[in-house]
């Protein structure tokens, strides 16, 4: 067993976990943050994507102890209070989800994608970047649409901020 302490969604948290405990299980079972999902055993599906120190990480590929001292953001911490993150809003507006199981990982991967592409996104880039996230419901059509729309919204907001 190891003592783990980290920042999750802006709050300092700590707990004890077996050394073999994966970060995703620590988040779900110790912290009750069940928005991060487990869809496979081989780090393929991306349902467990979170942000660790500002980078998208599959939380099933990381031991909880490895995250000690890190700052983690999960789907539960993405919205600004009652205001949805533009990516969350875009997924709703463009019907980018059906059963909702892959959605948290999709949204976390997509926000990271936008951050890594300050030049903006096009459809081919979004599709290539989604290689690590599997959805069985949507055929990706509306996920791609939502990410492109959110990218537009976020870059125009960014421009407004810069101008101000």
């Amino acid at each position: 067993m190891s003592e783990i302490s980290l920042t999750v969604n802006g709050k300092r948290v700590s707990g004890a976990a077996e050394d073999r405990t994966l970060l995703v299980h620590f988040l779900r079972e110790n912290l009750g943050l069940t928005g991060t999902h487990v869809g496979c055993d081989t780090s393929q599906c991306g349902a467990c994507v979170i942000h660790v120190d500002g980078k998208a990480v599959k939380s099933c590929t990381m031991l909880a102890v490895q995250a000690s001292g890190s700052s983690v953001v999960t789907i539960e911490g993405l919205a600004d209070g009652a205001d949805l993150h533009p990516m969350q809003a875009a997924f709703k507006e463009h019907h980018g989800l059906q059963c909702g199981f892959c959605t948290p990982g999709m949204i976390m991967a997509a926000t990271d994608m936008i951050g890594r592409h300050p030049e903006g996104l096009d459809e081919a880039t979004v599709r290539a970047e989604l290689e690590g996230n599997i959805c069985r419901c949507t055929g990706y059509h509306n996920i791609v649409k939502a990410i492109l729309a959110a990218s537009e919204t976020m870059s125009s907001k960014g421009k407004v901020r810069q101008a101000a």
Partner: protein
Amino acid sequence: MGIEGVGARVARKEDKRFITGAGRYVDDMVVPGMKHAAFVRSPHAHAQIRNIDVTKAQAMPGVIGVLTGKELKADGIGNLICGWMIHSKDGSPMKMGAWSPLAFDRVRYVGDAVVVVVAETKGQARDAAEAVDISYEELKAVVDAPKALERSAPQIHTEADGNLIFDWELGDSTATNAAIKAAAHITRMKIVNNRLVPNAMEPRAALGHYDKAEDHYTCWTTSQNPHLARLVMSAFYNVAPENKLRVIAPDVGGGFGSKIYIYPEEIICLWASKKTGVPVKWVADRTESFLTDAHGRDHVSTVEMAFDKDNRITGLKVDTIANLGAYMSLFSSCVPTYLYATLLSGQYDIPAIHANVRAVYTNTAPVDAYRGAGRPEATYLLERTMETAARELGVSPAELRRKNFITAFPHQTPVIMNYDAGDYAASLDAAMTAADYAGFAQRKADAANRGKLRGIGMSCYIEACGLAPSAAVGSLGAGVGLWESAEVRVNAAGTIEVLTGSHSHGQGHETTFAQLVNQRFGVSIDSVSIVHGDTDKVQMGMGTYGSRSGAVGMSAVAKALDKVEAKAKKIAAHLLEADEGDIVIENGALKVAGTDRQVPWFQMALAAYTAHNLPSGMEPGLKETSFYDPSNFTFPAGCYVCEVEIDPDTGVTEIVQFVAADDFGNIINPMIVEGQVHGGIAQGIGQALLEGTRYDASGQLLTASYMDYTMPRADDLPSFKVSTSNTPCPGNPLGIKGCGEAGAIGSPPAVINAITDAIGITDIAMPASPSTVWAAIRGTKH
């Protein structure tokens, strides 16, 4: 149509919780004192169990119980059953082998559950499961359906001689043989429909909780039909009487058919909870899902299609072997029979059809309904054959289809179905226009200049949805009726709850069902709550599969709304001292037509509950129930056109354009309907290009993870061009046909027709992976 009414593109109400991580799936449920289960599964495809030694496992840290099939039997838990009786053509009933939830004498596929371990943590349960010592005597296994019928094949169940479950036929053999004999042209093909693993992104899970004080069970389960799960677990598996068993299917992360069935694990979690005295949760890992979720398809067929000298189809003869796996899953028998052969007329006027279907056992995972269920197999067979026939006859594939279209309705096919409405030429025209079919030759020439092989293929599908009239399916062998129920409760302050037997696992019922209420009463969809998925809250219902929630489930809601409307108008008429026939409902008020006299909706509702001033003899309250049984199947149809470009050096196929033109009848929310089509097409393209389920000869599943089984990714697919041209369904009050499965039904033949067109070959196996395509290209060249 208001902004929230029928036909509006309303954003989904349920999305808020899913996009904020607040969805509640079975694995998210925590019950005080809850412990965890892990299963010991057979590593052999076929073996006799010689001994099970659990002593070491019982002594492992955290272990609460290690339970076997013998204890399960001793407690009277029943075998799993198939709920649809099929009779062979000799009149004998299908041969159903025994399927114990925990195998105790013999295992019949890799993944067969043998022992369950309950422990404090999931990790401890798995550690202890590895310490269970089972000695097996391996037996010869067979995984291929035609081989299972050979004399030398191992016998899998004593009940089914030669592994033959049934040998069934439909249609007129004599007339069909005569048509083939007299034909001017016959197209013959061997058609293989590849086995698929459904792969809902949420793995199956169950949480069983036995409350000793109340002698009551609760089961949270990943189910598309919780009431059916309760009925079957109670009536057939002796888990508990229905009144002592509550089944809850909360948020469910996709189903595609695979979560219709009642599997061993939910039965065992309930039983183990009573045995061990603790709530027991089990969640499949992905490999367990691959091994034990019911698979789909797996047909091997031969087909003969006869044409007269004018290229009209005169007869169709089909022989199919269907692989049902090691055990008969809940609805496995109806998939290759009444959901398959009944659709072999397609969109075409075919005077004589005969189909023979043999269902067989093999040492593989059970096979049951997967998105489309029988109809994709029928469509693939028919549309591959039509395409080949057009090439053989030297005519346009589109025009050969058009010439043979059914154009007058109702149309009785020779294989049971009576098509009620449709306009197949409209879908064909819409698809060809959207695809710029006329410009293909130029695009092919351009591609050739770039060194690419370009091909185009189409598929005109029909399916039978809205499953289905209870008396009709009963006469065909179904063990259940396929009606749906609804209850509409108008609360005293005017808000509304709709309780439905349909279950949403991605379909958006919380929005579309509310739109129906908005359309009728003008009440905002935020004031309408949809309740589903809990047998303690919702009266008996039949659940969601076969694209039935709109056509059947919403029709039940509409019937209940009729009753609510009638009573509401009576109350309003009384309050307004007007004639009931003069009351209209507009903008959230009940009005006397042509006057300014009105009573707001909420005031009428309040009057129903204060009961101070109701019409003489009227009962207080405003709540109505309906059970709706459809009068026919519904028949969605459409035309899909796929265009591909193949790199001959690598064999990689790129889908450069995919067009879908569907007829779904009336549509409640076009945005949600389009989403259903997109997802279905992706699964169909997955079947055609990517998804191959591979067992080796000894019965080991080689493709049991996402490292080995190719799921469609975003970069495998294009954006889709979808449209609808709708003929309302005359068979239900809402005119809905259903849209959940069409994409998966119509797309595989369109893709394969395009690939074979590009390469210039007759056939290619699905999935047409790069290596398969590369080899096929070399085959034609050498």
